[in-house]
């Protein structure tokens, strides 16, 4: 019984982690940017969905859409206000751009976090689930929302796969992640590819954020842990490798769920951290990393 419970809960948590990390790794793969405001954008999406429902009294679907739209706007704002100026700055030496992007997005994330805390307080917020109720799977009472979360995550991941592998735009993105210079030689505008990637990222982070808000609830305190978990999943899987982060998300998700159920919820994150350190020592490029 417990095993089945762990299996179901772990699946939903892992799917959510995977979705959250996917956009993060895509941006890194294509433009070499590690976006440390990731957690803030996810929380922003969830809070926007929550505010739409509780302040504007929209229905849950509209609320969720507003959440995703806000994340999309935030994603573009991150790109235009922080990342692009740093990348194009002539005053920052090229070899230091990475640390500047890290510092810049970190500060940007803190700004978003503080604004959320200022306008909507630090209290935890749970977005009203789109589907309510509980079903019984072989004796395990499972909220329908949990199944819904897992299904949406997989549908979106599937859609992303189709987009990247089957459409012209997607193939350009894929090519840019393999060899940016090669793509420009083929006459494709790298800047427009970046725009596409940040748009995809915004939608993915938005959906992941809203689902997280429905499933576990968010507060401005979850910003740091969310960024850290996406960062670790992505490094564990290999920076820039989408399938690697998918596997890593499931490893981390299940490891955390098993620890929480069998040992104690207080130790939830420790085994995943230990695994991460071990992987860095043995295989620094991650599970499926190329470098």
């Amino acid at each position, binding site marked *: 019984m417990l095993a089945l419970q762990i299996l179901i809960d772990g699946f939903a948590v892992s799917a959510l982690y995977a979705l959250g990390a996917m956009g993060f790794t895509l941006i890194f793969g294509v433009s070499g940017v590690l976006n440390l405001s990731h957690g803030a954008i996810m929380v922003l999406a969830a809070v926007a969905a929550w505010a739409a429902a509780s302040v504007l009294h929209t229905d849950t679907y509209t609320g969720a859409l507003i959440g995703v739209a806000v994340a999309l706007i935030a994603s573009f704002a991150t790109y235009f206000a922080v990342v692009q100026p740093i990348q194009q700055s002539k005053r920052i030496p090229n070899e230091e751009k990475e640390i500047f992007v*890290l510092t*810049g997005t970190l500060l940007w994330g803190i*700004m978003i976090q*503080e*604004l959320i805390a*200022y306008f909507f307080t630090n209290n935890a917020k749970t977005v009203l689930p789109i589907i309510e109720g509980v079903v019984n799977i072989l004796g395990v009472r499972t909220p329908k929302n949990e199944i819904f979360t897992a299904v949406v995550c997989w549908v979106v991941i599937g859609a992303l796969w189709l987009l990247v592998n089957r459409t012209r735009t997607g193939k350009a993105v894929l090519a840019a992640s393999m060899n940016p210079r090669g793509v420009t030689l083929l006459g494709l505008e790298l800047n427009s590819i970046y725009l596409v990637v940040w748009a995809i990222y915004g939608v993915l982070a938005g959906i992941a954020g809203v689902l997280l808000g429905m499933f576990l609830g968010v507060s401005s305190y979850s910003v740091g842990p969310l960024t850290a978990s996406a960062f670790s999943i992505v490094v564990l899987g290999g920076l820039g490798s989408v399938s690697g982060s998918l596997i890593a998300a499931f490893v981390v998700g299940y490891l955390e769920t098993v620890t929480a159920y069998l040992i104690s919820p207080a130790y939830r994150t*420790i085994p995943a*951290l230990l695994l*991460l350190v071990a992987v*860095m020592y043995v295989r620094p490029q991650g599970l499926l990393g190329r470098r």
Partner: protein
Amino acid sequence: MTDFFKSRLFLISIVVVAIAATLPLYVSGYVLGLLTVAYYFGVFAMAWDLLFGFAGEVNFGPTFLIGVGAYTAGILNNQYGWSVYLCIFLGAMASVIAGLVLALPALRVRGPYFGLTTLVAVLMLQNFVVVFADLTGGEIGLTIPDVITISANINYWIALGFMVISAAILYGLSQSPIGLVLQASGQDPVQAGALGFNIVKHKLFAFIVSAFFSGLSGALLVFYFGTASVGTVVDVAVGVNVIVAAVLGGRRTVLGAALGAIFLIVAGEFLRPTGELATFIVSFVALLVVLFFPGGFLGAALSREARS
């Protein structure tokens, strides 16, 4: 080095330190308390700058080194009642060991990978503090029975003296041949190695020095506060502040890092009336500096001097 003693920077530093040393004569204890914390913070930022600005190691977890030093000193004093100075010394030594632990992955992985390892180190330390609450005081914090002194003036002078000595050593180190080799190995390890420099030895050295000053400052800080808690010496947010301070002041300048830290703490205090928006404003200003004056305060000032 002889040029340095004639340079304008040296003269300005002397004047600033002299003014700072006389502050207890005419400012309130409240301001002194604020500056005392700011000076310890300045040492954190300078130690970080040595690792990042010179050795080129992106350390996202300065609070790992700080926290190990602070908690070791605090626990020894709390559990065994050993003398304050012995505890501070052992705290700094524990931090050096922590620095060596951190240096191991740094010699294998680079850039973001190393950055993540350091971040994980902080999260692990944080978990450790919470899990072993009997020893560490957990989330409530560790009470430290002894203090160095209760006089605000003496505490202030100790902090100032400590910062000035640390600044002199770290700055001197950064301008020495060792600093140049560090800088070279940070920017292009392969080429620096090809020139015959022992990269591993130099990087280990940088880690040890950075850890020593971080731990020492952390230990002194908890004996000033009389308490050690995750929120003051371990939390990722504290580490972020250290990094922001160093970048604001101007990375690769060492002294700028101290200026940035003092600015950050004093600005945070001035913004206290704005309540919850204080952190927002500080982050916003820091972001503007990062975007428009990537060299930081001192970087901007030095480049102007170099041009004139």
